[in-house]
């Protein structure tokens, strides 16, 4: 979600050479995986009879499959490699992206927001905005989202191809073609169901591929106590409080006390509220998985069930990253963190760990898990793109009133040109390294104000179309202004910030201790501005929809959903409380 995509930039600067010594057994595992992925699409092809099957899985999937698809779509390679990199760089504080930066938002979307998404019969997030507000708000979101998905998919493709070139010496162009064709094949045949099924397999692949790596790494470092001892030494050497690498909250009183350069207010408000709720509650890529569930109840349980494995992911991804840091600073361990022209290249932590600990055979499984996560990142974006394109752009503005068969054809064509555009975006990313920074910025600019729009839309019936549209525009503008007038310490002006202040010869209005701090505060400014402007404009202009038109879209006007089971563990509220309590325990355990 908030991984800095620029972390992949150094890949472009690495001199291609084979890092992993793969042999036939590793390729065999990879081939078997490819066979199953395409086979799933082929089998599902016979069950696709219309747009509802293709774009919405026929609204027929049980909650556990949607939940694993929900988390699998998010567990892309940027997350796997980025979080391990962040673990090596910042320590266990990276777990904030899970225990406060994901779990509360996932519970919230399940309990409070899914009833509106699912109950409104909207087929996409932009369509919900059309129902709730108006056409222009829908169009704004549909177009910005479609562009973002293509670039995200392209960047996944670029990163995969670059990684394969570095790790196993594959040709860059061939990798782009192979990954594009495989993803195209299984989505074209099986639509959203095919993507979700493959995300489920990918989830288990990552978990089962990384558990042995975590086990071997923690054993080598001398167990948890050995890791803590070593990281305390490293923290002291680096000028931070001893214990700051292994504590989540204890050293967040001042930014200078921890490697992340964050204080607790920024973490709680920026990450814990605006950034995480903005992503999990409004991003169609993940919400689409919950909307594919077989019932309202199942759709509400989807994100909450997904929160259970989500809170355990740090143990197999972040902790190995921390171990990598410890081992790299242990004489005689034989492990070194990768380096590039700028110093340590934390992004390559996972491949280096794989190369260090896994023999051929298991290495193939680890490599397959990484490839699966890249491809599922692409597939998630492409399925979201083809849905938004067909329903919210093509059907709404280009060809209204055509047959369902025609829109199914359009959806399949959208899959083809979505993949082709993604390939183009991959080459753009290869040419302009800063495009990743830019995309990350656009995400921050678009998602954070959107949260304010949704919260006001769902919980304040007075909010209207003009308010939502101008709120979104001003929120995005505020994010841009804040970013252009501030700068993280040690960064040059440009994509990192300061691009408004520098050209007119003034110093940045505020210097942040880290890029992450700047990102969180940008999100807070965007959210606050959108919230304020939406309220003010809505109050000053007339309502465009009356109460009767807002039933099923606004909390106070909608009948509360009834549960289809009396079992407590199937009740979203009860399940949500248990999940939040578990997340609180993890925060306490690593305080």
């Amino acid at each position: 979600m908030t991984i800095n995509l620029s972390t992949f930039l150094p890949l472009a600067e690495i001199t291609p050479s084979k890092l992993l010594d793969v042999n036939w057994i590793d390729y065999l595992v990879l081939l078997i995986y490819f066979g199953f992925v395409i086979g799933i699409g082929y089998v599902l092809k016979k069950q696709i009879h219309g747009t509802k099957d293709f774009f919405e899985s026929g609204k027929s999937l049980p909650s556990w499959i949607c939940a694993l698809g929900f988390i699998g779509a998010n567990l892309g390679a940027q997350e796997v490699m980025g979080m391990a990199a962040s673990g090596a760089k910042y320590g266990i504080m990276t777990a904030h992206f899970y225990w406060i930066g994901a779990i509360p938002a996932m519970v919230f979307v399940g309990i409070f927001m899914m009833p509106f998404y699912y109950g409104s019969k909207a087929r996409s997030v932009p369509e919900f905005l059309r129902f709730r507000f108006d056409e222009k708000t829908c169009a704004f979101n549909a177009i910005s989202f479609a562009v973002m998905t293509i670039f995200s998919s392209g960047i996944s493709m670029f990163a995969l191809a670059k990684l394969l070139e570095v790790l196993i010496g594959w040709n860059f162009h061939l990798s782009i073609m192979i990954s594009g064709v495989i993803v195209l094949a299984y989505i074209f045949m099986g639509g959203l169901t095919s993507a979700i099924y493959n995300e489920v397999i990918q989830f288990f692949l990552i978990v089962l591929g990384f558990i042995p790596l975590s086990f071997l790494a923690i054993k080598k470092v001398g167990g948890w106590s050995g890791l803590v001892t070593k990281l305390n030494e490293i923290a002291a050497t680096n000028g931070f409080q001893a214990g700051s690498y292994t504590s989540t909250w204890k050293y967040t009183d001042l930014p200078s006390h921890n490697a992340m350069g964050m204080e607790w207010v920024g973490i709680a408000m920026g990450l814990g509220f605006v950034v995480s709720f903005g992503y999990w509650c409004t991003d169609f890529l993940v919400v689409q998985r919950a909307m594919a569930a077989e019932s309202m109840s199942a759709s509400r349980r989807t994100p909450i069930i997904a929160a259970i494995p989500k809170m355990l992911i740090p143990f197999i991804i972040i902790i190995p990253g921390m171990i990598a840091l410890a081992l790299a600073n242990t004489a005689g361990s034989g492990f070194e963190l990768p380096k590039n022209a700028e110093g340590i290249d934390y992004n390559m932590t996972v491949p280096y760990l794989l190369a260090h600990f896994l023999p051929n055979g298991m290495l193939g499984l680890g490599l397959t898990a990484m490839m699966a996560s890249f491809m599922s990142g692409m597939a998630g974006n492409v399925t979201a793109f083809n849905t938004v394109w067909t329903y919210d752009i093509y059907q709404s503005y280009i060809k209204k009133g055509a047959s369902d068969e025609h829109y199914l054809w359009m959806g399949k064509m959208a899959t083809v040109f979505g993949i082709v555009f993604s390939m183009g975006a991959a080459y753009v990313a290869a040419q302009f390294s800063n495009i990743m920074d830019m995309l990350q910025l656009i995400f921050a600019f678009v998602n954070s104000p959107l949260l304010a729009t949704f919260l006001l839309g769902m919980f304040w019936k007075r909010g209207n179309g003009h308010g939502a549209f101008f709120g979104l525009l001003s929120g995005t503008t505020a994010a841009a202004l804040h970013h252009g007038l501030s700068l993280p310490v040690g960064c040059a002006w440009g994509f990192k910030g300061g691009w408004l202040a520098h050209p007119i010869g003034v110093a940045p209005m505020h210097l942040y201790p880290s890029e992450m701090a700047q990102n969180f505060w940008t999100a807070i400014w965007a959210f606050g501005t959108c919230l304020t402007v939406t309220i003010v404009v809505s109050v000053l202009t007339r309502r465009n929809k009356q109460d009767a038109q807002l039933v099923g879209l606004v909390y106070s006007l909608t009948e509360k959903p009834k549960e289809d089971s009396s079992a407590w563990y199937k009740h979203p509220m009860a399940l949500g409380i248990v999940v939040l309590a578990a997340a609180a325990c993890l925060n306490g355990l690593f305080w």
Partner: protein
Amino acid sequence: MNLDIKVPMGWFFLITGLIIAGYGEFIADPIIYQQRSLGYNVNLYWGIVLAIFGAGCLFFRNKGNAEK
């Protein structure tokens, strides 16, 4: 959807697990375990775990069908 996800998932992990375990036990040079995985034949042990997981998926799929 009529395709139960437990079927492809079960077969994938069963086949992959058996191949990795077989490779670890019969084909791989044991020296790789000294060099990489702290002396553990991680291919054999984890291959078996993968195969059991795959078989479990298939078992629960069949059990679900029988109950229907």
